[in-house]
């Protein structure tokens, strides 16, 4: 990507051409990130200012010479990159890329120094590193945060943002990831040399709509839709979820939306007047509405919550009661795979669970031989309710 005889600090002829063209075709001055450039009405003379330096009444060749000098060039290539390469279409993309080099906080020379060694932005589980390419063009690297410091050649190299689709589809055990913001993105890959458009596209594949929603929030324009409104909007098989009690919505948020389950920061509440107590998380980008997974799970919970409680009698030793609690905890925290096969001190250990089942379940799978529905014969199994519509 490097031009012969050109470094990241040099101005290219085409950039100077663009600067002159812009000043001649548009009568207004250029004022951008500390660069001020002007042209006379007839387009024959030019002026150029950066902090602590000012030149006026320059011929075009003098102007091009000054613009190419060491301390001025970064201002010119910086203008070219942001105004001619990135442009203003795609405001979310532009804002993100400006954010990736803290453009609103640091002057051009400091930024160029920082970009030389790379400026990092965390985004969910990934890190975007902005660097300088030739002629001040920015290049971006995207990799998993767990791979920070790993040699690039040791990672699977990609250059097409759409490759991220495959990366984001399965977790490290090959299971389908229906929620892209679940903290289960695999590591071991790198997009090492992307332009700005492809960098944002890669993030948009890994974390769909996250850049747009993050920027809308920055602009104070994020359209948060609270639980109640989302529930009332549903039709078909999901229209039942509006019957779910507010208390149960708390449990939904606690079950599904905390940082251990989803990296989006929950901004929706029960409704505008009633906040949920569950932790919304500390994620970089917001969650503006209950997602389809939450809606689908809530449908199941709405049906389950319609049931009345019933008093059962079970015979359990104190340790068995604690073991049941340990099993629920292990499943809820996704720890079952981490419990070692021979670690019989863990209640959720497989042998411990099998022992409990052998001792306490009858031939129909009923705990302590107690039927689920006492008026039935106890054989009623668990019936599935898999609906993916």
């Amino acid at each position, binding site marked *: 990507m490097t031009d012969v005889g050109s470094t990241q600090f040099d101005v290219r002829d085409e950039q100077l051409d663009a600067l002159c063209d812009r000043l001649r075709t548009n009568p207004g001055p250029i004022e951008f990130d500390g660069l001020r450039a002007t042209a006379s009405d007839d387009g024959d003379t030019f002026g150029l200012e950066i902090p602590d330096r000012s030149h006026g009444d320059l011929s075009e060749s003098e102007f091009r010479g000054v613009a190419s000098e060491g301390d001025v060039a970064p201002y010119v290539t910086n203008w070219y990159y942001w105004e001619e390469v990135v442009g203003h*279409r*795609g405001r*979310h*993309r532009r804002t993100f890329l400006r954010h990736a080099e803290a453009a609103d906080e640091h002057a051009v020379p400091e930024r160029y120094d920082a970009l030389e060694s790379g400026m990092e932005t965390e985004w969910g589980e990934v890190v975007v590193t902005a660097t300088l390419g030739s002629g001040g063009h920015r290049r971006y690297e995207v990799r998993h945060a767990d791979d920070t410091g790993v040699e690039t050649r040791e990672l699977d190299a990609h250059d097409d943002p*759409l490759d991220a*689709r495959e990366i984001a*589809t*399965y977790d490290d055990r090959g299971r*389908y990831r*229906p*929620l*892209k913001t679940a903290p289960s993105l695999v590591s071991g890959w790198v997009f090492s040399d992307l332009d700005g458009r492809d960098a944002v596209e890669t993030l*948009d594949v890994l974390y*769909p*709509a996250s850049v*747009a*929603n993050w920027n*809308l929030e920055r602009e104070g324009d994020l*359209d948060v839709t609270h639980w109640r409104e989302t529930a009332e*909007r549903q*039709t*078909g098989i999901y229209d039942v979820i509006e019957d779910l009690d507010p208390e149960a919505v708390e449990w939904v948020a606690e079950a599904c939306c905390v940082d251990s389950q989803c990296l989006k920061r929950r901004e929706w509440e029960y409704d505008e007047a009633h906040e949920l107590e569950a932790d919304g998380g500390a994620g970089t980008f917001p969650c*503006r*509405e209950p*997602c*389809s*997974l939450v809606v*689908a799970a809530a449908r199941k919970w709405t049906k389950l919550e319609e049931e009345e409680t019933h008093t059962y009698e079970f015979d359990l030793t104190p340790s068995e009661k604690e073991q049941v609690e340990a099993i629920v905890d292990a499943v809820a925290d996704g720890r079952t795979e981490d419990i070692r096969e021979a670690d019989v001190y863990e209640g959720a250990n497989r042998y411990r669970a099998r022992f409990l089942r052998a001792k306490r379940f009858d031939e129909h799978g009923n705990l302590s031989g107690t039927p689920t529905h006492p008026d039935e014969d106890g054989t009623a199994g668990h019936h599935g309710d*898999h609906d*993916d*519509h």
Partner: protein
Amino acid sequence: MQALVIVAHGSHLNPDSSAPTHAHADTIRAAGAFDEVKTGFWKEEPSLREVLRTVESEEVFVVPLFISEGYFTEQVIPRELRLSGWDVSAWGSDGLSADTATFTAEDTGQTIHYCGPVGTHEAMTDVLVRRAETVTGDPDVGEGFGLAVVGHGTERNENSAKAIEYHADRIREMDRFEEVQALYMDEEPEVDDVTDYFESEDVVVVPLFIADGFHTQEDIPEDMGLTDDYRTGYDVPTEVDGHRIWYAGAVGTEGLMADVVLERAADAGADIESAIATVREETRETDAGGETPATGD
């Protein structure tokens, strides 16, 4: 600047559901007709609710990757995309003829050309035939062959059967196959009895479904007697009651589906003629000489 957004159902459980949507989007992206090509899903991300904000263009063609007009195309998609003032009458459809109607998206302000579903477009007939070519490995398949188009049936939506009949009629009119029959999963004539409806020894069976899943991979193969247990697989063709059944799987996985998406957008005013020609040629798996082996699996 014009953008294409393909909207589809997707799944929380099965990654195969959205695979054809992504594949067709990739084909169209490679043809270069649109400045942006994006996908949005009911069950995956970006959601229908948020897909438009990932699009930078002001003018967006939205094509639903659905088989028929009904609940999703008439209620769910327009509601979730926030199409201002949407009413199904805007399509003026008889259940098969929805083409396009233009609205403003309330949240983004974009101009949205909301197209009818791919399944009812006339170009879908060609995809069914192309699927038969692909599964038999014969670009001229027809002589000596019967063709069955299989649909879900009317359980949830009467327009679903209309689409099946429509394409079966059109293929019959081509006079290419010996016999053409519409069959259903949940009503007569049933796909279970496929061999009763054909005299031809060879029968290609193409389900008019968008993606492979429970129905196309488990129900239909078992119902037709291709296998007792879908997990053990089946041959293409499989001999059943003296017929060779060439089971094609969901038509939506056929590469030429990308053409129907483009046709929908072109009908809605997108300027993409050259891309249509490119996609038609590049999605062909059987070459003109018919040398390419069958890829059915």
